[in-house]
């Protein structure tokens, strides 16, 4: 297989891992001030992701780093072009990360409440902005003949991209609620189940709208539409199955079904993108592709060996982490966060 195609697939895999894992972290952060009414409840909620959120966030760092290593032109055009959204995302992620650590270190309720809302914003914004970013990438943005993004900031806030952002927000909130239903106790998990059910409805509505809107905006231009539709089809079926499991109260199965939904959506849109990496809405000849945006065959080869050795090891020890911390968190527990 062409290493450039292989790396396109690996980048997709890294983004799937990132959205699956940070997806529920973002969802938990979004739900924090709403599901948690008392301090012990909020602490319990934070402690469900306490041991794992940082390791989860590395999936985003790795996706970005792998992007830089395998398709440096894509990295350069995307990160310079989407400047303001990325800066906003960074501000949000900074505030979330520090918030998780600092929040419970002071007794003051106003300190804790402020940080809780900052964690909320720090979780909502990245979810929204990643959806906006991916939607813009697959739809195509103004890119000139020098691979430079020339569209400005407001171009990125077009209705399609905003709907993509909202899709990510509801999908991750549902995913987070399902996660909380598995990790909480003392009645909080029941509230989480209720939220999961409600956000499932929202996700279904928004996702269907987004998929319909995606047809003229993205899918009709896809070179490999068949593969894309297979993955998007899997996503829709998984979402419906998720809804069924949620109704049955089978939260673990619902969680995995939600995961498959995230996988299907991500893979479906990346497949619709292929072999472009950043289509130009100005002129298809200006598009960045896996051919003109990649690094050299040698670099791709080196990176392939590195990735194929290290990723399985990472999966093993991250899985061990989840196994170690499989217990539910009670509001009566001694809290670390």
């Amino acid at each position: 297989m062409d290493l450039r195609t292989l790396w396109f697939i690996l980048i997709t895999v890294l983004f799937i891992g990132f959205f699956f894992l940070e997806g529920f972290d973002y969802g938990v952060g979004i739900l924090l001030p709403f599901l948690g009414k008392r301090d012990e409840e909020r602490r319990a909620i934070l402690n469900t992701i306490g041991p794992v959120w940082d390791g989860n966030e590395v999936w985003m760092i790795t996706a970005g780093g792998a992007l830089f290593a395998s398709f440096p032109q894509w990295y350069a055009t995307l990160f310079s072009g989407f400047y303001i959204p990325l800066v906003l995302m960074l501000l949000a992620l900074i505030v979330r990360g520090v918030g998780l650590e600092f929040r419970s270190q002071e007794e003051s309720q106003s300190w804790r409440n402020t940080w809780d809302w900052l964690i909320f914003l720090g979780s909502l914004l990245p979810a929204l902005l990643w959806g906006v970013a991916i939607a813009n990438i697959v739809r195509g943005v103004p890119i000139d003949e020098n691979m430079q993004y020339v569209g400005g900031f407001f171009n990125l806030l077009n209705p399609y991209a905003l709907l993509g952002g909202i899709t990510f927000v509801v999908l991750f909130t549902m995913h987070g609620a399902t996660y909380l239903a598995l990790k909480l106790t003392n009645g909080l998990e029941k509230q989480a189940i209720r939220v999961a059910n409600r956000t499932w409805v929202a996700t279904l509505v928004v996702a269907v709208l987004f998929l319909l809107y995606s047809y003229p905006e993205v899918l009709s231009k896809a070179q490999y539409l068949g593969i894309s539709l297979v993955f998007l089809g899997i996503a829709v079926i998984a979402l419906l199955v998720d809804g069924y499991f949620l109704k049955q109260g089978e939260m673990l199965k619902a969680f995995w079904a939600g995961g498959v939904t995230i996988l299907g959506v991500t893979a479906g849109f990346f497949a619709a993108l292929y072999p472009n990496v950043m289509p130009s809405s100005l002129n298809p000849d200006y598009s960045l592709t896996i051919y003109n945006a990649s690094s050299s065959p040698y670099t791709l080869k080196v990176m392939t060996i590195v990735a194929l050795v290290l990723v399985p090891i990472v999966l093993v020890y991250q899985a061990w982490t989840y196994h170690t911390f499989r217990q539910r968190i009670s509001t009566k527990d001694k809290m670390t966060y």
Partner: protein
Amino acid sequence: MDPLVLARWQFAILTIIHFFFVPLTLGLTIFLAILETAYVRTGKEVYRDAVKFWSRVFLINFALGVVSGIVQEFQFGLNWSEYARFMGDIFGAPLAVEALLAFYLESTFIGVWVFGWDKLSPKVHATVLWLTAIGSNLSAIWILIANSFMQRPTGYTMGDKGVIMTSFKEVATNTNVLYQFPHVFFAGMTTASFVVLGLSAYLYLIKRGDKDMLNLSVRWATIYGLIGVILVMTVGHYQGQFLVREQPSKMAAAEALWHSAQPAPFSFFAIPDETTQTNHLNIEVPALLSYLAHGDFSSKVEGIDEVQQKMEAKYGPGDYIPPVGVTYWSFRLMVYSGLLMLAILLYVWYLNWKGIALESKPWLLKTLVWSILLPYLASTTGWMMAEIGRQPWVVYGLLRTKDGVSPASVVSGGEVLFSLLGLGVVYIVLTYLGVKLVVKYLHKAPAHAPASAD
């Protein structure tokens, strides 16, 4: 509002602040892992108490290091996209390896360590901390490999868009990193040592904290720091000699040696004047620079004029000398703070060895508190020398900094100002809050028993 100028300020400020947190993480993870291993081996509670006590300081610092680190990966694309295009074939790989190998390890196991005190056996728990420590230090290796290519390109050939990697092994074993990583590693040890010493001294002053735990911390931090500071300066010396050969423009500027000299004097103090190309108020020792640079008191050391001439012949017309005043003073301040740290550690070690309690010398305790700033001064000025001293190049000999910036049509001056102010203010506020939390934490430590026999 020139986007290039703003981008340079932004990268410098955000990276310097990030590097406030990095050395402490590098050094303190290992220090705490050593203490926790001692607990596992001896079963003595005081070791575990020390680890648990210092872990609060460690974690506040670690969180700030992580969040400022995320920005680092993005910065290359945000403000330096042309650099990313030119360097992508080489630069992206070490960053990706850093994430795959080091960040995953560090970030996964820190979570297990923080939350796993009551879930894991002491042996497994200590191992988890070692894995975190290894992860952090591995990340330093890989980012320094990336930086080392910028300082001394190797293992590459030129393509039409930029550099193309020809040997990953050469890139990864760049001689520059063989000096640079140990230098940063030992700087980490030194930083951890001064933070533990300084905060312990503060606790003695406010008469709080468990005395056995503090005495233990002071003894171990002193030895840890001595090893660190002696080795950081030793490696630094040889690194300096290496750079005289590899980056003559940096070293000539760092010495404010306007004209080649044989032998060359070492300047202890000077106010370099770039317009007249002279030094005011120069205090120098004859022949010492010849000895430091080449190990030979009678050797010739290239001056700024000769280096500039050679570079113009090689690269065409232009100014190939970095800002002399800043480079000279960064270098001096780094070295002088290192020597001061050595002196302080030797004195504290001597007191420990003689069994003289630090608390008997309040002036020393106050000095130790203020000395927390010394490793931060050394690290900051060290990196200023490394990066400003490389100018006008962002990749030495291959790409000028001004050619690496994101085009103004893509990223405007206004946008850079937005990110500079936004991120800068947030960084400063969070750092301030972090320090405040540490100080409050120290004040919550149990008070010393009154009138006890010491």
